């Protein structure tokens, strides 16, 4: 199943922040984790992750540092900042509300419509 583009865009920030709150990671590993978590359902355009990470960095939600990979290449690692954790907590609440509202609406949709008393 492919997830709709707008939904992917809306969930990108909390997803990345959430993944980074598990521990520092570099770009490719973040994407692998996204794919793992969604069972392969969320396919990002890989290149788009980096502008997003840079924006989160500019906003102060993540910080970055250059290190080296096992193969000796330059590699940029990202870590979540205290401000990022605040934002993440805030987003979590928002998403919980949305998810709860959706859950109720799905449930209501599954029930047969209540019989209408009237002139029938």
């Amino acid at each position, binding site marked *: 199943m492919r997830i709709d583009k707008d939904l992917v865009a809306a969930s990108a920030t909390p997803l990345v922040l959430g993944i980074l709150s598990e521990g520092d990671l*570099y*770009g*490719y590993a973040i994407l692998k984790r996204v794919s793992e978590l969604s069972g392969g359902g969320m396919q990002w*355009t*890989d*290149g*788009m992750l*980096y*502008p997003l990470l*840079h*924006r989160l*960095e*500019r*906003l*102060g939600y993540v*910080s970055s540092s250059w290190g080296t*990979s096992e*193969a000796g*290449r*330059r*590699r*940029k690692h990202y870590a979540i900042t205290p401000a990022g954790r605040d934002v993440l907590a805030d987003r979590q609440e928002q998403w919980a509300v949305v998810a709860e509202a959706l859950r109720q609406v799905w449930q209501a949709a599954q029930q047969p419509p209540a019989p209408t008393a009237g002139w029938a």
Partner: protein
Amino acid sequence: MMDPHAELEAQIDRWRGYVQRRQAISAADVDELEDHLREQIADRQATGLDDEEAFLVAIKRLGNLDAVSREFAREHSDRLWKQLMLVPEDTEEAGAPPWRELAVVLALAVGAGVAVKAGLAWLDDGSVQARNLSFLVFPFLAAYFAWKRRLTPYVAATLLVPFAALAIVVNVYPFVSGGSTEVLATLHAPVVLWLLAGVAYAGGRWRSDSRRMDFARFTGELAIYYTLLALGGAVLIGLTFAALQVVGADLEPILADWILPFAMPGALVVAAWLVEAKQNVVENIAPVLTRVFTPLTIAMLLTLLAVFTAAGGLVDVDRDLLILMDAILVLVLCLLLYSISARDSLAPPGLPDALQLVLVVAALAVNTVMLTAMLTRIAEFGFSPNKIAALGLNLLLLVHLVWAAWLSVGFLRGRRPFAQLERWQTRYLPVYGAWAAVVIVVFPPVFGFA
């Protein structure tokens, strides 16, 4: 021995070269993307794909380079700044020949010269001329941006109305000749007009922080280009003078009557165009300049502070000194703004940022000394338009600097992103315009046009 993956390496190299040509993607970003690409290739190879297939899959997963580069540009508008020039170049291919912009610029430059010359010829009083000078030049600069950014009628109206209102106020008010409210209005009019020019520069999107930062950058580079043009012009004129003097011809009257009235406003329009067109050239100088002048300015401010403390207060100091000090503080502010605009907002805090904080603190110290001196003067000799104007400016500067220092400390300690410091500068700018407008419009009636 031949590297078994030589072909793959060559492909990655070609890809790197291709990505590097995108101005919105910096060299460090290319490194980051390459690391990603190689990881992806390695993972594909592990699932059994050969080099070529793995490379193709990895490239495809990375996405359309145009779209990715646009996304980078949106995030890093400071890099986009370099591209501003390139965008119209591509879009204008539909009809507009490249010389059209040059023709427009030259026409506007000559127009500005004619306007100033006509103003000097028709307005006989020297102070009336001075009051109107900025109003004569501004329309031509604004017209250039209006043409360049294709301003909507609505934005053009938001420019024209305050411009016309100010022009009327400045000319209708019955100023007492040589009075200080007149001098104040003359000095503050360019500030308001310059911020209006900023609205035109931003193409009407003046609420955007990044456009405001672009305008700060633009202002700094305009000053550099204008200085370069002025220096070149001065050398040229000086040599011509010397040569003609040997022959016995005197150019002096022509210089005052014709060359300067045309050259000075014309150079402003041309400099604006140069900044627009040649952003890349100066871009390399800007950070260097700010790094050179930040420590020098700190030294200057500290010297001033030392002299003031040695002199034991400023109460009986000439009021010219207070005005001079205000000018110095405004200059420091411009330097601060320019160096912030020239900085990569993602770079971690470093020595230049610490120096910048020292600069802000030194300016704050000077500002405090000035404020005390001014308040004592006011307590002793009473109010005057000059003192209130200077006091107001000092208070504005105080607020600006205190908060900038606070944000700088937060940034240096890694508590705040640099963007907050940037945003504070850009958000505060209109306050100066509002104050200048108050000085022009409200001061003269309040102080009886004296």
